[in-house]
């Protein structure tokens, strides 16, 4: 079953041609890896899937709805794109709570459980401004999964994580895949891609090539 369908996508971003007539079909329950050199357009591809930017040409359908017609941003997506912004003077829990309150889908217990799942302490009074890079990354992962999102779009999710945490998150993603969730990741670490992904696409000369 198709979750995301991209047809004939062309996109230039900040004066650079990134994609030219790209087609891509993302199936439910699989982990996809997108690889490519810096500036090749991995983040832009993810932003297009989320509706943050529109393609110059072509259409993107998510769960049967074309983005920009009846819907702007798709439902049930957990994302890490760019550096997430946090309220530096609040704790990690308070930051997640703030986000959770928008849709009111999860309670405090669920937020706390998610924090523990990624290796953060929900009761800690430490403010985010005092977090290490790795802790901030864990917080980013926590917000992407805390509402049981069915599609995860994770741009460089393993950045700044220590080896144990990387192992922990890998296991988590594999569990989610088994539950039927769809996951798209980018990583500069080939090992992450090899271990996790069912299909890997490389961005090469404005096209996506199946590796």
């Amino acid at each position, binding site marked *: 079953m198709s979750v995301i369908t991209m047809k004939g996508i062309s996109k230039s971003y900040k004066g650079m041609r990134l994609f030219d007539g790209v087609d891509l079909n993302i199936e439910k329950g699989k982990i996809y890896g997108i690889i490519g050199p810096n500036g090749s357009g991995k983040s832009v591809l993810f*932003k297009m899937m*989320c509706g*943050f930017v*529109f393609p*110059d040409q072509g259409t993107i359908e998510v769960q049967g709805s074309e*983005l*920009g*017609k009846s*819907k*702007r*941003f*798709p*439902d049930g*997506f*957990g*994302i890490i*794109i*760019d550096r*997430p*912004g946090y309220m530096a003077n609040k704790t990690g829990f308070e930051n997640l709570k703030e*986000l959770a309150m*928008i*849709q009111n889908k999860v309670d405090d217990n669920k937020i706390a459980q998610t924090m523990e799942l990624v290796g953060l302490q929900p009761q800690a009074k430490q403010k985010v401004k005092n977090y290490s890079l790795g802790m901030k990354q864990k917080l*980013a992962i926590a*917000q*992407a999964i805390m509402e049981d999102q069915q599609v995860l779009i994770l741009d460089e999710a393993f950045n700044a994580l220590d080896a144990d945490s990387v192992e922990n998150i890998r296991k988590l993603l594999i569990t989610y895949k088994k539950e039927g969730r769809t996951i798209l990741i980018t990583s500069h670490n080939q090992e992450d891609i090899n271990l996790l992904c069912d299909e890997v696409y490389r961005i090469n000369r404005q096209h996506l090539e199946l590796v």
Partner: protein
Amino acid sequence: MATIITKMNHLLDEMIRMKWLAVAVVFYFYGMMLKKEIALSSGELGVAFNNWDISLRLLNDMYLIVYFIIPFVLFLSSRTVLKDFDYQLLIRLGSYRRWVYHSLASFWAKASPLFTLWIFLSLFMAIGFPFSWHWSSLSGTSYATNTLNGLAAVFEFPFLALAVQVFLIAFAFSLMHMALGIFYVLVQHKAFMYLVSAVIFLVSVIGFKVLPNHLAFLVPPTYFSLTKAVELFQSLWLLGLSLSIIGGLYYLCIRFLDVNKRRYLSSFSLYFPVVGYVTLCILGIIAVGNSLKESDQASIWDVWAMAFTGVSTEYFSYLPFFYYIIVFFGFVYGVQVFLSREVEQLGYYKIIRFQNLGAWMWSWMRRLLVAIFLFLIGLMALALMIGALLGRETDFQVLMFPNPLTEIIYHFFFNGFLQVALYINIVFIVSWVSKESIHGMVLISIFMVLMLPGFNVAGLVPVGLNGMAYLVEYSPYYLSLVLLGFNLFAVSMIHVLFKRSLKI
């Protein structure tokens, strides 16, 4: 209930922070300065003042608004926008539309201390002034530094003015933030947003000093100050209507934010010139209508006649000159675009079916003649409607011209019809002879030059003769004869051209 108490506590905590105490000090000292000025004026004029003089003056003071409130609001607003524009937030909100409203709520959480302090200090400064529920004698007196006499004329009770002022400030705060939010969604560039904030500030500073009162609706501070808004719009209804229109435009903008605009841009670009043209026509009439407000007796017919004054050799002014160019040559340009399609692109295919050049020309010319008539009716209806909205008299009379109104109506319609028809005939002749659209533009430029002073001494150059300015020197019937003669000449030329050349 618990949430409200928590929010109130949060607001109080926030207000005792250093930055808000500094803001309170600014309000306090500015208020003290105004108090001294009020007491001094009261002594000089020998009239009484009361609490409303200081409270409403502090809330309406343009210098405070332009140099303190607006930069502060812009600062808070741009900070909120940048902080809130986060992909994690966006994906949960589901659309940019909801993000704008979410961001507005965040902005108010940050701006409420400023809003509360301003209102609180305005009321607090009244301590020591005599209290009354009514306007003071000083409020109603017209003198250089009093800004409240306009309000005293419109509102029976000052507390009503205070309520409307508070609403206006809240509305203006919200509009300013939403403008920045919408802009940021569209460009998503921090530097551009700072640039726009700087431009808004500069337009506010320059606009409130330099722009004449009838153009004050273009500058943001007008919507922060009730005294300024009442001075501009003259009526609360018109102010309400303007705010509703602005609110409506924002609503439409926000609704449009999530749509993939690329697919609509091509169709929008087709209508953009028409929308721009109609907007300019309306703005011109509004400017004329506002300029006539000094004359109490001016009627809606004066607004209409003055809007289409045009220029003559004796009477020349740049604003009527440019307005005539926009309205009439803008229309002729539209016709020229239509003609280039009709002559250059469809000519062959249509003429072969009509098998007669005269019948072919009449097939579209009759539509154009009806369009001219509807165009003139539309202009007149628009001017009368705007005149009425601006509160001008509805009497069937014109004060600004010596001619009877019936003669002016005759001139506008009959001579207007002949003049525009002549422009179209000439444009057609040029299109037919040259087959180049650009020559039509050159022709319109020549028309513009011929309207400048010194070219039309005897009223015999058939350009701009439908302007009301010609009625000062010439009889409308003389102008009709001139225009009829030139039209007949143009039609004869077309006839000759058709006979001489059947090739397109």
